[in-house]
């Protein structure tokens, strides 16, 4: 008897420990994931990341001959201590450590009356001769100048100079600036954010009306017969199809549609169309569930007032199901943000800073894939984008919870 009791206690204890351990493991994994991503990506999280292009553009600028001489430009009062100011040329530089741990010299500010305001583009191309604003954040690769003796010299990052050294060299040696080689900052994800927004918008625009309409048909109008059972089973099966298969279908079946509209490569519209198809089952399911929750009494009341079935659906049932439908929309947005496999096929992996519907581009998730698949994977940037996706999805989930609670509250 006694040994039995001990044995039972032991086995109970073991099973209890097992359940607790499992749930702790799940939480632990999540915590570790968050820690890893935040530890690596947080240093990159700033407005520049959201604002900047991914590809940096190089330019060589020259200056108007008539003003190209040193003057006296006093250091602005409100300028930060860390800025190195060139009094003779009226320009301030700062040191900056890039996420690739590269020492950069950036332009911080240029005096309003400085000769550097007359900068124009000398690089070949459409923009040649056009004025260039030397705005804050531009990388100073190389500054060519002439010295008093007429000899040429240069300073800047290519000369391994710091901001202070660049300012000092300019003040002490330069009598005329030949050219400045500048580089716009890269590594930003502005293009991918825009692409993601395009994707969400277009795919929802297509999937929502179709999805809601078919949900209404299935749950409100369809009689229980074999064809409708078949349709329902079909939709349920669609939910389980891996997205990469949808991607294949997108490339082979949907591409001709976008080609008709003038697309020459895989493109964002194609990605959005494919996404719309992936979203359809989700939207249909969530709308159907939302419609189910609407009390029968409301439908009866509407019908008893002489409303037709269609009027009842569109004036009463659908509006009442709105919170549920909305949470379906939010879930769909989450799905679009998280999708990568189907989009790699259909939109390509070229990070496009100026995305358009019929051009290639990357969503945030594909952007991660893109920066990680190169020869030098960029962990920091990938983690920074992951933070953005995580936060976005977290907000969506909280919104869904909130809406679900609203929905339950309004009926019970």
């Amino acid at each position: 008897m006694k040994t039995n009791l001990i044995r039972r206690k032991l086995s109970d204890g073991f099973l209890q420990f097992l359940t607790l351990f499992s749930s702790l493991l799940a939480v632990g994994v999540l915590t570790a994931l968050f820690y890893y991503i935040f530890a690596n990506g947080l240093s990159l999280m700033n407005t520049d990341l959201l604002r900047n292009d991914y590809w940096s553009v190089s330019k060589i600028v020259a200056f108007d001959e008539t003003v190209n001489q040193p003057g006296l430009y006093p250091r602005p009062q409100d300028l930060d201590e860390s800025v190195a100011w060139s009094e003779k040329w009226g320009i301030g530089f700062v040191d900056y450590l890039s996420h690739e741990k590269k020492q950069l010299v950036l332009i911080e500010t240029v005096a309003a009356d400085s000769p550097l305001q007359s900068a124009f583009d000398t690089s070949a191309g459409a923009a040649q001769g056009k004025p260039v604003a030397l705005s804050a954040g531009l990388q100073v690769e190389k500054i060519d100048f002439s010295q008093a003796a007429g000899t040429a010299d240069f300073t800047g990052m290519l000369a391994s100079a710091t901001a202070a050294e660049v300012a000092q060299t300019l003040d002490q040696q330069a009598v005329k600036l030949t050219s400045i080689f500048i580089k716009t900052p890269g590594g930003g994800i502005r293009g991918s954010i825009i692409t993601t927004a395009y994707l969400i918008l277009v795919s929802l625009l297509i999937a929502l009306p179709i999805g809601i309409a078919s949900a209404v048909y299935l749950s409100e109008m369809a009689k229980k017969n074999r064809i409708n059972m078949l349709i329902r089973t079909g939709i349920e099966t669609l939910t389980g199809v891996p997205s990469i298969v949808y991607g294949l279908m997108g490339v082979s079946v949907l591409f001709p549609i976008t080609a008709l509209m003038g697309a020459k490569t895989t493109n964002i519209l194609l990605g959005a169309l494919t996404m719309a198809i992936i979203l359809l089952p989700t939207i249909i399911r969530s709308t159907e569930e939302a419609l189910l929750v609407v009390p029968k009494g409301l439908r009866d009341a509407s019908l008893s007032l002489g409303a037709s079935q269609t009027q009842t659906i569109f004036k009463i049932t659908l509006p009442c199901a709105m919170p549920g439908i909305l949470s379906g929309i939010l879930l769909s947005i989450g799905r679009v943000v998280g999708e990568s496999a189907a989009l790699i096929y259909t939109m390509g992996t070229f990070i496009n800073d100026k995305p358009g519907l019929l051009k290639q581009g990357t969503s945030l998730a594909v952007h991660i894939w893109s920066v990680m698949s190169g020869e030098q994977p960029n962990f920091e940037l990938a983690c920074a984008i992951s933070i953005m996706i995580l936060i976005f999805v977290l907000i969506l989930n909280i919104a869904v919870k909130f809406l679900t609670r609203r929905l339950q509250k309004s009926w019970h």
Partner: protein
Amino acid sequence: METCFEVKDLNLYYGENQALKHLNLTIGRNRVMALIGPSGCGKSTFLRCLNRMNDLIENCRITGEIHLLEQNIYDQKMNVVQLRTKVGMVFQKPNPFPMSIYDNIAYGPRCQGVKEKKLLNQIVERSLKSAALYEEVKDRLHDSAMALSGGQQQRLCIARAIAMEPEVILMDEPTSALDPIATAKIEELIEQLKKTYTIVIVTHSMQQASRVSDDTAFFLLGEIVETDKTLTIFSKPKDKRTEDYISGRFG
């Protein structure tokens, strides 16, 4: 006495199961007809036959005729939507739409294509006054109807039915979810409404039936056992089963 509904040999089946058996009943115009009987006896089912709400139930089959003012509502040519504008219904649980009080009342007329603001205003005011609700809500017509109390919600549902200017108002245990004070108000209202409308009310409360109705029909197991003037039914029932039920021996 003018006839409103004339029910002739009505049978209703749920699949194989016969729920209503050979019903014959005459409901007088501008009178209150109470349908009483134990739970599951078919009185609510019968009520829903009067505005063809049973049409929506799959597997439900109906034979026989119901004439509303000389017109068979189960005729092939009958427009069900049109019928329901003539036969309004109030349900057991107050079920206002989750919209403003005004929109609740205006819902029916709007579905019929009434768009004119002035006309809708009139309809809303008149209906709320008829349902004795106007004074209580006139300052908050555009607030949500869900914020009203249960009794107010039920009167709103009556007002909503009245807005269609129906011939008949069907009431399916309209006070079973309400407290005694709200119940008294609804009963008072029924007294008022019968001047204009025919009312068919399903009730579980014998007292309510005796208080508000002119005629009473006693249902048992899908059949009408007895129908007569309410006074007669409650004082001198002809059938033993009726007597047993109203004296509380079963049900």
